[in-house]
């Protein structure tokens, strides 16, 4: 049912219009614009320090823009910010996991403040990402790649329409990247949208996959 929405939706779901951002003395983003439609993956590329992370944080509403508009489903933020955030899953450089809690406890809290969830569902998702063995271990005991997988499990579990992921495949091995690409493709087929900052492009050449180069 969601694929239909993707095929027929003529309106961009998410739009950035001429976003400018200063960080201290530096004019980081100079009029960045893009549109994101249902079922698309947009990968922001560019050298280090060009403002990929800042752009993602602006779009997510963590950073106020100097000028320009971020429009979600026709409403210009910050109007309707809470509704927007309920359909947004954001993953930063840091994983956002408490190292003293187990993977399962982390996921339980992270998902439950957004929607009701069962432990079985959490375990299933961990299984999909091949980290089911880590479920009951405190996160501090996991490897960097395993932590990243647990963090990605949270993104999948939130059932958000829009994923904003900052370098999502950091620390993932080849198998992990392949697994994750499959989940992204599935999310896109369901009409979801993904905005990433990336050094390494995912799903290259597939339909609906675009890049935005920052200079």
């Amino acid at each position, binding site marked *: 049912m969601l694929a239909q929405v993707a095929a027929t939706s003529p309106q961009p779901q998410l739009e950035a219009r001429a976003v400018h951002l200063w960080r201290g003395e530096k004019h980081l983003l100079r009029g960045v614009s893009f549109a994101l439609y249902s079922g698309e993956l947009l990968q922001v590329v560019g050298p280090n320090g060009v403002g990929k992370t800042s752009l993602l*944080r602006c779009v997510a509403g963590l950073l106020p823009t100097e000028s320009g508009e971020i429009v979600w489903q026709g409403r210009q933020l910050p109007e309707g910010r809470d509704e927007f955030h309920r359909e947004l899953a954001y993953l930063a450089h840091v994983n956002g996991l*408490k190292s003293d809690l187990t993977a399962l406890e982390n996921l339980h809290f992270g998902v439950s403040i*957004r929607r009701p969830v069962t432990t079985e569902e959490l375990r299933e998702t961990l299984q999909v990402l091949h980290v089911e063995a880590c479920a009951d271990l405190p996160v501090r005991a996991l490897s960097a790649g395993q932590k990243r997988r647990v963090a990605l499990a949270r993104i999948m579990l939130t059932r958000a329409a829009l994923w904003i992921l900052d370098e999502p495949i950091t620390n993932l091995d080849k198998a992990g990247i392949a697994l994750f690409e499959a989940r992204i493709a599935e999310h896109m087929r369901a009409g979801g949208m993904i905005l990433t900052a990336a050094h390494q492009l995912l799903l290259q050449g597939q339909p609906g996959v675009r890049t935005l180069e920052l200079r």
Partner: protein
Amino acid sequence: MQSSIPTTPGLGKILMLVLARDLRLAVRHWDQVLQPLIFFVIVTTLFPLAISPALDELRKISPGVVWVAAMLSSLLALESLFRPDVEDGTMEQWVLSGQPLSLLLLAKTLTHWLLTGLPLVLMAPIVGTALGMPQSVWPVLVATLALGTGSLSVLGAIGAALTVSVRRGSVLLALLVLPLEMPVLIFGARAVDLAMHGEPVAGPLNLLAALLLFFVSLGPFAMAAAMRISVES
């Protein structure tokens, strides 16, 4: 995509979730939870050493000593209120959860008070007795501290949210928060003093309760606004 918009949990549920999470974290790090309490006891021990072992002299200043020690200990405890969550990125997720941030932060502050404020309230009569405080003022002491440390927690949480992204922000935090907390100290300590002289204390107790209500109802909005600025960096 509309069908997959998650139904959001109620406010009571969120409160319980935050409480459960932070209590669980505290149990795994109970040593850190105890530190402000130990600090409280140590500070009150300094006064007999610095002034005099004579209980008659200590009794006169005991309300002030207990209250100042409680204030400093609550200040010390603030360091652990938001900093760990901001550093490991979980606070960012709270900001982006689509739930009212003011409520999440209030729930967090409440849990923090249960872990650091409440033990102090319960410990206060013992400390007070060691300073020569008569047993008859225990109820007033506990009541003023219970009401007062709540206000201190909320005011402190605003300061902590403002300074959490500042490196070495703990001295700054004290500078911001202590002046704001002075009225609470005045009403709290003077009420205990009045009780020791057998005078009525309903007035200052009511004022403390009013302050607590006032801070709890408006403080969370300031906390949330401050936190949104702090997670920008």
